């Protein structure tokens, strides 16, 4: 046997496609050829490696998303005529609805929209849209439609505090509701609906119209920073700050010119604008507006507005830090917002320092670890913390693009190593980490401490980040431990499997 033939034979062998005689020849060859033996060994190990990789599965929302796309397909195409001979267009649409509902389950808004479409379609001339088929009826199943539905049916008391007594959080959110100018938002969504209707004609028309809309609201909405305050860049001659998603769109438009709508990756962020990384046939552009997402499915809250209110009530706490070195995200359902607000106040009292509620994602964790590694500090002065994350049964979305998706990003940090010493995080995790840190030889000085406690996705736990700004002359103190421990007491067990701590030390402090 020639070694040059061996590659293909080993490949065939891996797939069980060799007869016994050929296998015997291979074995004979291997016994006398170290090089091929090594190759064969590596090939088998490679197969084992591939077999050991985790399988990627469809997300929980796969069926619903597919249902939406089926519903968005042109009615005539939604079910081939041949499949329903003699049943006509109504049957076609009805079948589409039925399958959509079967896939989407509770997607009742979409169903309502399609039912309207069906009744309108009965008398419609072929190939022409009826008023009901255009605009918002068509939008019924997408985010704008849901926003509109949520806004039009919104009732703060019923949605936020059903059957409960007023409290601080209620007052804060009541102010938020009035500040949101819901009628104005409804009007905006209706405008987007009209824009959306044009999508089939020309993608660029759609973007132009959207940009007209966004330029009008960018000052009131788009200029409100939402996240990642350190993030700033100049793109297309426009200075972009994180959270100013609408300005990013404008910048992208300048960069790409008229082909912007057909351009690749632009931006994904909850509460901002979401332009798919590449245009899709049925959905070239989606746009969310900061603030409106608050009411999408009643799940997302506008972090910045809530914190602005907190800042008013407690000057120098939340917002003061935001401008320096803080990430603020709130992605929580309304029930949790109320609890979170309560905990924010508590933490403020405990720490008197920056506090945010956060949904940390895996790449965030990784970037924290990387920044520790790359900080350039003498290794002996670094407090090395290795975080291992385990996850619940739901999917982890490393970069959540929608509030609902973010809520799925429920990492639970299950193991922590501090300077090589492994701490198994179970109950009392935060305290365990702090205890371990406390026992480390001093002196050292804390530059940054970031502890995150992620939700378990069932609303039973809160997500909290404590930030002591990088560069602050902040010494590690028992207060931080006390704060965490107090929180641990307040939410027993919730910190435990979900704690991330990042400590960087510099030189010899104290």
């Amino acid at each position: 046997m020639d070694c040059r033939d061996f590659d293909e034979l080993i490949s065939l062998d891996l797939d069980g496609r060799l007869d016994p005689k050929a296998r015997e020849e291979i074995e004979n060859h291997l016994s006398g050829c170290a090089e091929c033996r090594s190759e064969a060994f590596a090939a088998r190990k490679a197969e084992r490696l591939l077999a050991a990789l985790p399988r990627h599965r469809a997300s929980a929302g796969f069926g619903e998303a597919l249902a939406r796309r089926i519903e968005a397909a042109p009615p005539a195409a939604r079910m081939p005529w041949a499949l329903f001979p003699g049943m006509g267009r109504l049957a076609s649409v009805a079948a589409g609805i039925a399958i959509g509902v079967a896939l989407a389950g509770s997607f009742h808004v979409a169903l309502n929209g399609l039912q309207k479409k069906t009744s309108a379609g009965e008398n419609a001339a072929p190939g022409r849209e009826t008023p009901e088929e255009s605009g918002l009826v068509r939008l019924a199943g997408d985010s704008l439609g849901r926003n509109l539905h949520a806004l039009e049916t919104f009732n703060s008391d019923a949605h936020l505090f059903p059957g409960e007594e007023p409290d601080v959080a209620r007052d804060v959110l009541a102010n938020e509701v009035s500040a949101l100018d819901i009628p104005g938002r409804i009007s905006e969504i209706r405008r987007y609906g009209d824009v959306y209707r044009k999508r089939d004609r020309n993608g660029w028309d759609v973007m132009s119209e959207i940009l007209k809309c966004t330029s009008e609201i960018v000052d009131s909405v788009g200029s409100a920073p939402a996240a990642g305050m350190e993030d700033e860049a100049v793109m297309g001659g426009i200075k972009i700050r994180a959270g100013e998603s609408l300005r990013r769109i404008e910048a992208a438009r300048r960069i790409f010119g008229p082909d912007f709508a057909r351009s690749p990756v632009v931006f994904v962020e909850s509460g901002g604008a979401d332009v798919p990384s590449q245009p899709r046939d049925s959905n070239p552009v989606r746009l969310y507006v900061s603030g409106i997402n608050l009411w999408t499915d009643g799940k997302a809250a506008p972090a910045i507005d809530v914190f602005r209110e907190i800042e008013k009530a407690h000057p120098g706490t939340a917002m003061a830090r935001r401008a320096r070195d803080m990430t603020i995200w709130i992605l929580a359902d309304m029930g949790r917002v109320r609890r979170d607000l309560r905990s924010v106040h508590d933490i403020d009292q405990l720490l008197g320092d920056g506090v945010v509620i956060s949904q940390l994602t895996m790449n965030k964790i990784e970037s924290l670890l990387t920044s520790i590694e790359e900080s350039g500090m003498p290794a002996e002065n670094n407090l090395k913390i290795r975080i291992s994350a385990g996850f619940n049964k739901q999917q982890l979305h490393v970069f959540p693009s929608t509030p609902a998706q973010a809520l799925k990003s429920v990492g639970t940090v299950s193991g922590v190593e501090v300077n090589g010493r492994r701490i198994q995080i179970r109950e009392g995790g935060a305290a365990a980490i702090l205890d371990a840190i406390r026992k480390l030889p001093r002196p050292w000085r804390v530059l940054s401490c970031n502890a995150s406690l992620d939700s378990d996705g069932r609303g039973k736990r809160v997500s909290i980040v404590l930030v002591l700004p990088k560069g602050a002359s902040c010494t590690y103190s028992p207060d931080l431990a006390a704060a965490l421990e107090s929180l641990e007491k307040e939410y027993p067990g919730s910190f435990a499997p979900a704690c991330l701590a990042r400590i960087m030390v510099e030189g010899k402090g104290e």
Partner: protein
Amino acid sequence: MENVLTAASELRVPGEAIGPEIPDKLLVDRFRNGEKAAFHALVNRYKDSMVGYMFRIVNDAAWAEDLAQDVFLKLFLNAGKFRAESRFSTWIFRIAHNRAMDYLKRRKNEPRLVLDSADDAPGEEKSYEMRDFRETPAMESQMKEVEDGVMRVIQEMDEKYRSVFVLCAMQRMSYEDASEATGLPVKTVSSRLCRARRFFRAKAGRWIDAQA
């Protein structure tokens, strides 16, 4: 391949159940006759393998979902074109293969722009199958690193090798089925797979060596 493709536990639809014993072809027939549950069952049966295949090809979870949905959308619209002489599983993989190659071709021709912050870069949205690693958190972190490395190597492969590699070496599809899915002769599937494996061994040596 059937064991990869069949997800019997997810075949339920409200008020009705379609068991795994119902052959795909029968489900297609029933769907063509207007039975919504049959389409639902087909989706449940193949969605994971479609998403898995797409993810290995494009290395982007969000796009993998979208492309897999494209496949089912096409199935929905074109079920009438399914011919009984081919197996449904290979037919749907052929749709998937064509869609994936079309996507890769478009992606290759389009510039990529990243406007977001470095640590939240768009296009990096990933989803992972969740497993309970609580007993061995270090393993989880290690496996993630390995998977990322492996996926990078796969993305380096030329598309014509990548598709065969994913179908045969990762999805464990037979050469004959892969031949039907890709439209390539069986012999070509075999030789491309061999080259892809060689490439993989050369590039992924670090991860392979770490294997027990």
